């Protein structure tokens, strides 16, 4: 988690802004406040904001309008956005959620509920950023293929080819190869691999035992020479890696 994330709170009720600020600051967040959507946009242009909590009914620019503006801007689109509103009718909540808002909280808000939503959305935001980083690293500029030499892995079609020859892999074998290819060249531990292929959290010995037949099977199907680009190499005592061009 980032050090001291900053939260933008938008509400036209001064008392409520003060209360929310106190709650968030006590939980170690940096807080910016705005009394309507227009003020909020100004802050977004100048400050780094990790999460937005906004009322809906506000003068000048309401919460729906602010939400739309935030989502239209690519720089802000990943910022989690929570409505905190006195509009508690089913239809209001449904409308807000249908827009795609990350959460919809109703006033009066309990401290525990507010903090749970804030912590959860910041955690999710970090998870998404981590996943994206990993996928981007592996996919380069948005390509849908992973490659290592002549080895090509089509993630969408679950298809592996070597020099245009298709190699039939089981779902688990494909998961293993794709995971190694995403981090091609890097050694991945058996415990990490087994979490991905078998969804098991286990010790290194059991992980190694479970993994070996799978590795052997993929190697047999790939039929590559030891150390050849695209082959799976065992780094004794550490794990496995997909060999990349030197």
């Amino acid at each position, binding site marked *: 988690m980032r050090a001291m994330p900053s939260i933008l709170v938008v509400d036209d009720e001064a008392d409520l802004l003060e209360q929310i600020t106190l709650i968030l600051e006590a939980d170690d967040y940096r807080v910016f406040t705005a009394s309507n959507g227009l003020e909020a946009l100004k802050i977004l242009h100048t400050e780094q904001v990790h999460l937005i909590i906004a009322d809906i009914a506000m003068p000048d620019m309401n919460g729906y309008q602010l939400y739309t503006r935030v989502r239209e801007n690519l720089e802000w689109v990943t910022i989690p956005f929570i409505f905190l509103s006195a509009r508690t009718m089913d239809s209001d909540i449904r409308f807000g959620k249908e827009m795609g808002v990350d959460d919809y909280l109703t006033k009066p808000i309990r401290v525990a509920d507010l903090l749970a939503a804030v912590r*959860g959305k910041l955690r999710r935001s970090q998870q998404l950023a981590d996943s994206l980083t990993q996928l981007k690293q592996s996919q380069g500029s948005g390509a849908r293929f992973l490659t290592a030499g002549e080895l090509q892995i089509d993630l969408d079609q679950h298809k592996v080819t070597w020099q245009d020859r298709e190699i039939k892999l089981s*779902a688990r074998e494909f998961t293993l190869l794709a995971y190694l290819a995403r981090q091609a060249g890097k050694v991945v531990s058996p415990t990490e691999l087994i979490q991905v292929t078998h969804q098991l959290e286990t010790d290194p010995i059991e992980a190694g035992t479970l993994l070996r037949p799978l590795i052997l099977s993929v190697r047999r199907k790939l039929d590559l020479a030891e150390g050849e680009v695209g082959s799976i190499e065992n780094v004794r005592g550490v794990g496995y890696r997909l060999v990349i061009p030197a």
Partner: protein
Amino acid sequence: MKPQPAILVVDDEPDMLENLSLALQVADYPHLTAKDGLEALEILQTQPIQLILSDIVMPRMNGYQLYQQVRENPLWGAIPFIFVTGCWLNSEICYGKELGVDDYLVKPVKANYLIAVIQGKLRRAQQLAKAADQ
């Protein structure tokens, strides 16, 4: 032909699975069902999934465990995950939300509310995917 991404519904109560399936069918969402977390993971390994609706209390692998497994796999990191559960205590809701789940719905859930939430989460997932492509 590449299969269309589906919504994965995970619940150990057959009646609940049927009700949720019906709501999704009426709204024209392709969907698959699993009766616990382990079955859900098997489906995730082989089928493209665009959103997960999961109960919490289930045998073999519960909803919290399933959520954790899904989030640990970068391939599944962007899939919206929603708890649909009978766990209604405030502490349970707070716990679920703090995990980072995309939404937390308490049973019984009205069909129109469920569909609104799904639409919103899919819209949000598209926005994030678009941003990731930039």
